[in-house]
């Protein structure tokens, strides 16, 4: 039995179809990435899966429990970090955790123990009595995650959990997600950060305009587009991209002090670049041949190049 089973899910807002007949399974203990451009239907999907919204059609089951028919039981098994789900800024850090624990019916002793343990884990124990309004965005997000995992859920939904956070908070959150997954929780992760999804997820699903356009392991998706290999090169001085025009180089992009030459023939491209560098007296600082990236696959699949 899959941890999350989605069948023919559909949701309309007025004339706009936000989610259009999507189906997929997430296995128990899997870390599953859900990617898509802005407005693709990611947040609506997560709201449908977590019982916040009621679908127009289709079914969702969490650990075999139908979300529509037995919403409360399904919610008891989930932890949710909503995209816009801020914590209560008028309450202290500890009060927020205790409130969440009470909703999940934790007994008083466990509530006390678990909230203090999580506050320590997230480096907020010393600030436990401070109102959350005095916290930074990263600290608020740590409280948000602590609230979602206080009952050790079987399935954890995270909607853009690391968006706009400082490095320290991001790492802490990623480590927590990995730890939860290692303990057996199924993770459903929505993110804009394709590299993060590539690094963390066993499978990713790409959604665009409410429809699933691809669902597979990141490496397989990357390999779907063989012709998107590139040579990334940096010189000791600025160089115009059109210097490298050649029939086997399809596009040149600039990234900071680096140029990325997209090609279907890396061997000829490297030789071409080296020859040009010698001819113009340019010193090569670094050069890397890159395979097709998940980001490239994402852009292609969601029509971002058009």
């Amino acid at each position, binding site marked *: 039995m899959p941890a999350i089973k989605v069948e023919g899910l559909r949701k309309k*807002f007025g004339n706009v179809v936000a989610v259009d007949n999507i189906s997929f399974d997430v296995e128990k203990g899997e870390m599953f990435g859900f990617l898509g451009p802005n407005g693709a239907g990611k947040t609506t999907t997560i709201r449908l899966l977590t019982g916040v919204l009621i679908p127009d059609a289709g079914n969702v089951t969490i650990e075999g429990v139908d979300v529509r028919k037995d919403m*409360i039981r399904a919610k*008891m098994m989930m932890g949710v970090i*909503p995209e*816009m789900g*801020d914590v*209560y800024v008028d309450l202290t850090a500890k009060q927020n955790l205790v*409130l969440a624990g009470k*909703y999940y019916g934790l007994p008083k002793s466990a509530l006390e123990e678990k909230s203090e343990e999580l506050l320590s884990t997230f480096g907020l124990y010393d600030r436990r009595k401070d109102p959350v309004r005095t916290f930074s965005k990263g600290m608020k997000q740590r409280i948000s995650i602590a609230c979602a995992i206080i009952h050790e859920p079987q399935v954890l939904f995270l909607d853009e959990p690391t968006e706009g956070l400082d490095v320290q908070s991001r790492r802490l959150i990623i480590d927590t997600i990995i730890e939860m997954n290692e303990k057996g929780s199924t993770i459903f992760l929505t993110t804009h950060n394709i590299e993060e999804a590539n690094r963390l997820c066993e499978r990713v699903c790409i959604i665009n305009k409410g429809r699933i356009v691809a669902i597979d392991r990141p490496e397989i998706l990357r390999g779907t587009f063989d012709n998107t290999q590139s040579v990334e090169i940096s010189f000791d001085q600025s160089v115009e991209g059109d210097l490298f025009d050649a029939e086997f180089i399809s596009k040149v992009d600039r990234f900071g002090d680096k140029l990325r030459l997209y090609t279907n023939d890396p061997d000829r491209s490297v030789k071409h670049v080296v020859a040009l560098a010698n001819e113009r007296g340019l010193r090569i600082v670094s050069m890397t041949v890159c395979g097709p990236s998940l980001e490239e696959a994402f852009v292609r699949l969601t029509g971002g190049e058009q």
Partner: protein
Amino acid sequence: MKESVFLRGVIVTAEKNIRIYYNKAPVIIFGLLFPLFMFFAFYMGRKIDMSVFFPGFLAMALFFTASSVGPLITPWEKQAGTYERLLSYPVSVNTIILGDVLAGALFGLIITSVVMTVAVLFLEVAFTAPILLGLAIVLGTICFASFGVLLASPSVRSPSHIMMFSSLIRFPLIFISGIFIPLTELEGMGLILAYISPLTYLVDMFNAGLTGTSAFPVAVDILALMLFTCVFLLIASKFHKRNLAKGL
């Protein structure tokens, strides 16, 4: 199991509301200061028989306090971005609504009890039927807390908009419910309007509890308040569900 989770959700939601919203400015202004100012404006400095007008004032205090918390909560939570988190907990919309009603009713109950105590101690107000008075307070607080939650159901994210809207609805009610003009003196359109105001039945019940006289049989007042409560809750549930996604 389902019932205990539901009840727990209602209590935890009410507890959360009490901690966060009781000391918010709109609740203090619209729930406490307004009825106090109304009392000063209409009763102070005039030769008024308190035994005649106290039931009306008590009903007005209860009405304003019990209905002041409900309109604030949902718009505030939507604006603060906490509503989606709340929905992600093991609660339904009805759980949230009843938690909001409970918080509003308790606020009304506390303030009304304070007003009642002050009146008995300092204004020498007497009451003839304490159990009936107690029942009226309980039914009234639940009814008007439900009314307050109903006022929060339009889909706006700004608490100030909903507080203005709720004042627009609440103020006219106090003029058509026998608070300033006793029901026995109302006639024509005024009387018809009084019949459709839930506050009328609370004022009447307070009259029965405090002075022993009432325009309707007490059973009618009780039934009317219960019926209005059910109607408010049903409509609030329907509208809150319909507007759930708006402003998330």
